[in-house]
């Protein structure tokens, strides 16, 4: 199988870009993300070398923190890229097709970046082989790992097919159905935990699907807006604008439903919905969803699309952190001088994990873009 020019850029493209890079013409974002990757890498290295006790602020009371929320964020972005690919191919084929390889590539690298963040949170990542040796079929986490592996595999196959112009409709459907199951499994991993009222909901798998679609599409929209600026083809970003509005409206409805269900419950632990009501409405709904929607309603330029997409990505990242961490705010069993509400603020090392994952995604994508890896897909003439 041809590797150069399909999976990775051609040799002459790599050497040509490396020369530019050495001459300081690699692009500001590349140098910035390289610095981010190195600094973040030091943080990740410290976590593994010094251990969790000295580097991260999670505890028995807040077992999951920023690293898990970063994983969830990237995993959902990855899923969203795949949904964008499916909807783009099905409903906007002419505008979308030239961006397909970029979208799938983004889905792939965000999935891997998410896993890097997850790996730094596990107490014993070196025992991951236990998923094969002693699997537990009753665990949502086990099924999530199974489907996550299938998801990455299908993404790689889909990417190779697009790059080799051998894309098939069957593969397109497979690369939609498997991520739906994968990210529903991720939602059920949280939603099935009856002890945590902030998580426990049958709405959560659906919420994850739609917020994944929103964030994945936002990332793709930035790429589409950049491409339309480069090529002068403004029509290419219209599908992304439309999909983002659909995503924002869907997540708004689901967030509203989740809050209402939580507020109307009188069981112990559900007071967390009352306590987080203000932040959920003002920041989670008005700022994170209504704001970008209004921008897209009244400004239809590439700059507006980029701005609203960045806003969506930032606010949804914070929403993932809120979802993961606020679940532990009300302790299930209070003893001694434990506070009535548990607080958590991530350590510098946890923040560096985020820097590492973000920088890895940015660096890999921008370098591959500059090397012209995706140009091959732009010459696709056939359809599905």
């Amino acid at each position, binding site marked *: 199988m041809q590797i150069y020019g399909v999976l990775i850029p051609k040799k002459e493209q790599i050497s040509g870009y490396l020369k530019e890079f050495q001459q300081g013409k690699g692009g500001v974002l590349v140098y910035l993300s390289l610095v981010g990757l190195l600094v973040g890498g030091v943080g990740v290295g410290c976590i593994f070398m010094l251990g969790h006790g*000295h580097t991260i602020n999670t505890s*028995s009371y807040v077992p999951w923190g920023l690293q898990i929320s970063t994983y969830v964020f990237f995993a959902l972005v990855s899923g969203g890229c795949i949904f964008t690919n499916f909807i783009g191919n099905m409903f906007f084929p002419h505008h979308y097709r030239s961006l397909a390889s970029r979208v799938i590539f983004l889905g792939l690298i965000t999935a891997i970046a998410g896993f890097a963040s997850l790996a730094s949170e596990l107490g014993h990542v070196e025992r991951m082989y236990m998923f094969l040796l002693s699997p537990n079929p009753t665990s949502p986490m086990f099924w999530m790992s199974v489907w996550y592996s299938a998801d990455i595999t299908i993404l790689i196959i889909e990417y190779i097919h697009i790059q080799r112009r051998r894309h098939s409709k069957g593969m397109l459907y497979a690369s939609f159905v498997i991520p739906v199951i994968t990210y529903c499994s991720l939602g059920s991993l949280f939603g099935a935990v009856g002890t945590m009222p902030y998580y426990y909901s049958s709405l959560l798998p659906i919420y994850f699907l739609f917020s994944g679609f929103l964030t994945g599409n936002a990332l793709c929209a930035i790429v589409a807006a950049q491409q339309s600026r480069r090529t002068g083809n403004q029509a290419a970003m219209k599908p992304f604008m439309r999909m983002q509005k659909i995503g924002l409206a869907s997540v708004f409805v689901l967030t509203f439903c989740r809050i209402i269900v939580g507020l109307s419950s009188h069981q112990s632990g559900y007071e967390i919905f009352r306590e987080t009501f203000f932040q959920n409405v003002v920041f989670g709904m008005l700022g994170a969803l209504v704001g970008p929607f209004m921008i897209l309603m009244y400004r239809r330029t590439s700059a507006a699309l980029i701005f609203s997409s960045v806003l969506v990505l930032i606010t949804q990242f914070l929403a993932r952190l809120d979802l993961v961490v606020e679940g532990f705010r009300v302790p299930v069993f209070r003893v001694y001088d434990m506070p009535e509400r548990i607080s958590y603020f991530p350590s510098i090392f946890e923040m560096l994990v985020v820097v590492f994952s973000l920088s890895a995604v940015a660096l890999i994508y921008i370098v591959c873009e500059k090397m012209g890896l995706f140009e091959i897909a732009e010459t696709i003439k056939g359809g599905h």
Partner: protein
Amino acid sequence: MPSPEDTDILDIMRADLQRALKKPRQQRRWAMAIDLKKCIGCHACTTACMSENLTPPDIHYRPVKEEELGEYPNTGMRFLPRPCMQCDAPSCTQVCPVTATYKRDDGIVVIDYERCIGCRYCLVACPYGARSADVGHYYTGDFHTKTYEVENSGEYGKTSKRTSHWRSPIGNARKCHFCIHRIEKGELTRCSTTCLGSATIFGDINDPQALITKLINKSNVMKYKEELGTKPMVFYLT
């Protein structure tokens, strides 16, 4: 069998334990009863447990919850010791992705320290907060660790010391295991032997002659968060 009235409660429990150990393991069902009227909130069980299992800072297998009941002027205070409930339908074992935590045939929910990946999903799923994450803290700091902090605690009969990350409880979930290493040697759980008010009763509820069986068959028995369907095997006598 001597009656509770004229014999020390520990002797009765020891006799119950010896009788249970003669049976095959699958015929035993270990359980604990805690008499809340007798608990004086001294926390002796908590400290004894920490000493027995050499638990690191912030990890208590058996904390005691202090509860204020009623409203002024009709108020009271209650102490609620909380070991692992060793549930019959545990939510922690269901969620563990690698079967590192499982229920033995005698009912004790254990953790395989060499299989746990440290994902902490069991901590999230346990409705009693009975599980803790050992992230590698020491009481006396990293560079001046004392022997008692790194010594092998004997939990689950393991021999590895708490010195390195790779073959020790560090990085894993930890929890009360009814002093499994003691009861298999014919000794009672540490909390039941240390209880000043003789409030903690341990034994095999499959044995109709056992003290615990007699006590939990009375009407004043409460199970903590029983409504969740976890079928806890710690009975509170009220």
